[in-house]
């Protein structure tokens, strides 16, 4: 069996080294049972394991564990968080299936730094894709241990025993024993060796593939579910921070005298932080508005129109992502060469829950309830900000009201914790919408330049793709082109103040929306040049089987392409890959040539994500990805002047709304024997291109810049 075993009847109380000490911190109260410790493989871990100091003495030999308690309940403890994707439902499903226990006997404890072992964070569709398979193995390991124990107890060979609903039974004798009875009075610890444990075949899974009610459902429809600002503590102060008018602005003069005159107002100045606090939020708001502040604002050198030239000018050296054949040769073979530049603007995450945190300091220890995707890194930053030892910081992540990549830095946690320490009272920080836009780490503005050629038969001969400032994820094309090169210059993750006038960061499927919009728009133009239907042209240049399959299925399900269409109606297609998942999308739009306004009537999505754990959860992600995608496709862009953000609320920054809702159809290709890949990001990646291509089909306007606002559509209309 692939594990080291340690059985003691009483928990060992001798402190031998730092690892055991801190392990006891969160295992101390858990008593007896079977424990399986394991590594949830997360990208970037190898880097983090090389720096154990970053994990503040948390055990270094595991980052998640499960426990089977004497009452038969199974608990999985992991530092991941739930922000709407449904992982608190899908992860217990996987575990229950491997363990042969009822789904409702599995609990999951997430995002609490006192209870859960260290974890890097929740992002990149990783929870299901990378954590899930290892969680299954941990379940399989636990089941194997329990079977072995049952064999001894029932005096039977393991092969003879069955497991069902948390009970091991011997069909030949009728003897049985429950998991809880087996671990009674014992403490058994196992460390998973993931290379030596085999999980059940897909055909043996029963819960996998079902669509149970979401575990967070009741909390969310009753309003009982708590988000970070829903912790209301006795004596709690509401803090409002003085904010600069633009990034990089320096405070020259501040006069808080008028604010101080309001009864009960406290003004705290701590380094760069100037905060107004009051027990009532609206009094804190009013007091803040009375502060007179003068700033020196950096000179305006850029705005949302000039940014693209700037990016091209200051972009770092390109990196070759993919190269094959010889571009010169490709040019010679090309009958037609099409060259184009695609642009996309800065886009905001705009979760409906703004950044918020509630902090309380008691006996030298601070507890922070915070909406974040990264509780453990936040713990470290809070400890540093307060000058506390890490064990004096407790981060609790309750429900998170949407993240989409934007809730990692979590500056509000440090603000609340610092102010709680200074005032000695609990403090809540709930950013207003203007702060939310100002401090957002936007999806970067970016430029993609493509030069591609086809021969007389419509085969790709040349593919030269250069992405600037978006990042290289999925920049490499999956279409067959013998002579090709892909380069990427500047990543969204680079801290490069030269490139962007404010912070940028990961936004649902980072890089991929930009790269897919450009590639699939260009493929459409090439198809027109080849005189081929866009689906036919793609298939002609596509040997990847899974991609061909989703595209063909999409065309069939949609009824591609209607022989007749009404005036102003158009149909578009787009293909993409993300986190190992293959997606094809087809859309129908109506364009008003007079105004340039676009209405998306129907979107069909076919997704191949390998095995599907929770089909209902996946459909929610597809529908959500399509709706969210319509925003970056049609309306969402952050306007700015210099380092001042102009869009600060939903009046000028337009999110998709009910009146936009198209008919959405989703189809999943079931590949139960392939590993489950990501499903949170892939459905959004095609939305820009599928709409762009449908607009072209409708009115002949090739829009090269996202978002495709009415003005941009009108400007792209062919002149008659």
């Amino acid at each position, binding site marked *: 069996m692939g594990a080291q075993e340690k059985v003691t009847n009483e928990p060992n109380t001798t402190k031998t080294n730092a690892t055991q000490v801190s392990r006891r911190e969160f295992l101390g109260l858990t008593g007896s049972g079977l424990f399986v410790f394991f590594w949830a493989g997360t990208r970037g871990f190898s880097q983090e394991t090389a720096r154990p100091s970053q994990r503040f003495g948390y055990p270094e030999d595991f980052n998640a564990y499960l426990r089977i308690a004497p009452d038969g309940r199974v608990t999985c403890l992991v530092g991941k968080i739930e922000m709407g994707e449904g992982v608190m439902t899908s992860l217990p499903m996987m575990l229950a299936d491997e363990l042969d226990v009822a789904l409702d006997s599995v609990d999951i404890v997430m995002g609490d730094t006192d209870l859960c072992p260290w974890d890097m964070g929740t992002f990149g569709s990783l929870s299901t894709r990378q954590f899930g398979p290892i969680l299954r193995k941990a379940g399989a390991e636990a089941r194997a241990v329990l079977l072995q124990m049952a064999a001894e107890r029932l005096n039977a060979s393991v092969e003879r025993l069955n497991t069902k609903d948390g009970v091991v039974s011997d069909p030949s004798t009728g003897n049985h024993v429950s998991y809880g009875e087996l671990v009674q009075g014992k403490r058994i610890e196992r460390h998973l060796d993931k290379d030596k444990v085999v999980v059940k075949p897909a055909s043996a899974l029963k819960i996998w593939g079902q669509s149970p009610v979401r575990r967070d459902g009741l909390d969310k*429809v009753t*309003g009982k579910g708590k988000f970070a600002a829903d912790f209301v503590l006795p004596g709690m102060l509401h803090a409002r921070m003085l904010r600069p008018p633009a990034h990089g602005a320096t405070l020259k003069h501040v006069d808080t005298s008028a604010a101080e005159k309001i009864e009960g107002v406290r003004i705290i100045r701590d380094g760069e932080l100037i905060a107004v606090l009051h027990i009532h939020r609206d009094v804190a708001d009013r007091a803040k508005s009375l502060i007179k502040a003068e700033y020196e604002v950096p000179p305006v050198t850029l705005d949302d129109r000039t940014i693209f030239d700037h990016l091209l000018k200051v972009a770092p050296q390109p990196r070759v992502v993919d190269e094959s054949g010889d571009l010169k040769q490709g040019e010679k073979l090309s009958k037609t060469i099409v060259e184009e530049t695609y642009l996309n603007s800065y886009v905001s995450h705009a979760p409906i829950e703004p950044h918020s945190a509630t902090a309380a300091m008691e006996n030298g220890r601070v507890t922070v309830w915070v909406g974040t995707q990264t509780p453990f890194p936040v713990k470290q930053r809070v400890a540093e900000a307060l000058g506390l030892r890490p064990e004096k910081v407790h981060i609790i992540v309750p429900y998170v009201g949407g993240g989409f990549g934007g809730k990692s830095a979590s500056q509000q946690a440090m603000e609340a914790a610092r102010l709680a320490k200074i005032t000695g009272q609990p403090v809540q920080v709930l950013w207003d919408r203007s702060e939310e836009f100002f401090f957002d780490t936007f999806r970067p503005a970016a430029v993609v330049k493509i030069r591609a050629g086809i021969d007389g038969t419509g085969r790709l001969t040349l593919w030269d793709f250069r992405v600037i400032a978006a990042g290289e994820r999925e920049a490499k094309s999956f279409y067959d082109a013998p002579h090709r090169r892909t380069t990427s210059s500047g990543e969204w993750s680079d801290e490069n103040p030269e490139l962007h006038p404010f912070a940028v960061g990961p936004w649902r499927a980072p890089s991929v929306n930009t790269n897919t919009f450009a590639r699939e728009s260009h493929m459409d133009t090439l198809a027109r040049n080849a005189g081929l239907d866009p689906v036919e042209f793609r298939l002609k240049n596509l040997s990847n089987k899974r991609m061909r399959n989703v595209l063909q299925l999409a065309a069939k399900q949609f009824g591609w392409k209607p022989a007749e269409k009404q005036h102003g109606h158009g149909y578009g297609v787009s293909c993409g890959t993300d986190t190992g998942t293959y997606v094809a999308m087809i859309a129908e739009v109506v364009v008003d040539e007079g105004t340039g306004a676009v209405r998306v009537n129907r979107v069909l999505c076919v997704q191949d994500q390998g095995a599907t754990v929770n089909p209902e959860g996946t459909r929610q992600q597809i529908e959500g*990805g399509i709706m969210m995608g319509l925003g970056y496709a049609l309306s969402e862009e952050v306007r700015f002047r210099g380092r001042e953000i102009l869009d600060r609320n939903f009046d000028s920054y337009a999110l998709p709304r009910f009146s936009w809702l198209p008919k959405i159809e989703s189809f999943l290709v079931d590949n139960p024997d392939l590993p489950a890949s990501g499903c949170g990001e892939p459905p959004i990646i095609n939305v820009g291109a599928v709409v762009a291509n449908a607009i072209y089909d409708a009115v002949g306007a090739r829009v090269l810049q996202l978002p495709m606002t009415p003005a941009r559509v009108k400007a792209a209309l062919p002149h008659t």
Partner: protein
Amino acid sequence: MRRTISFTLNGKPTSLEADDEQMLLWVLRYDLGLTGTKYGCGQALCGACTVVVENEAVRACATTLGDIAGKSVLTVEGLAQEGKLHPLQQAFLRHNAFQCGYCTPGMILSAYALLRKTPQPTEEQIRRHMDDNLCRCGSHTRVVEAIQEAAKERA
């Protein structure tokens, strides 16, 4: 001006010593402990703070205590009766008409006000009525379906 302000909250008479100008959203959340009503934008642009006042959906971030004095206010906490979820809550649950859930109380209360006025709305009426309730996770399809189903049950 500080005075005694009385209103009906989730069916119960409620009195507060307060100023007329105090924002209903903050009073609900921080004085009355009803944190199901959420802050989203502060300018009546997103609908996360929607509550029902006298059968009308209103934005609690743009409604003062003075505005609701003597009136009846319903929040998400007052929807379930005797432990039984309101048909809209049940329908939202059945349809998984949410992901992160932050906009959900406001969505349900907007829908509640719609069904009070228009018990059998068309899909178009639902979309129009719900248009100012924003959802970033994109649960719109399911919200429409849930409202249709709740309406059907009442028919």
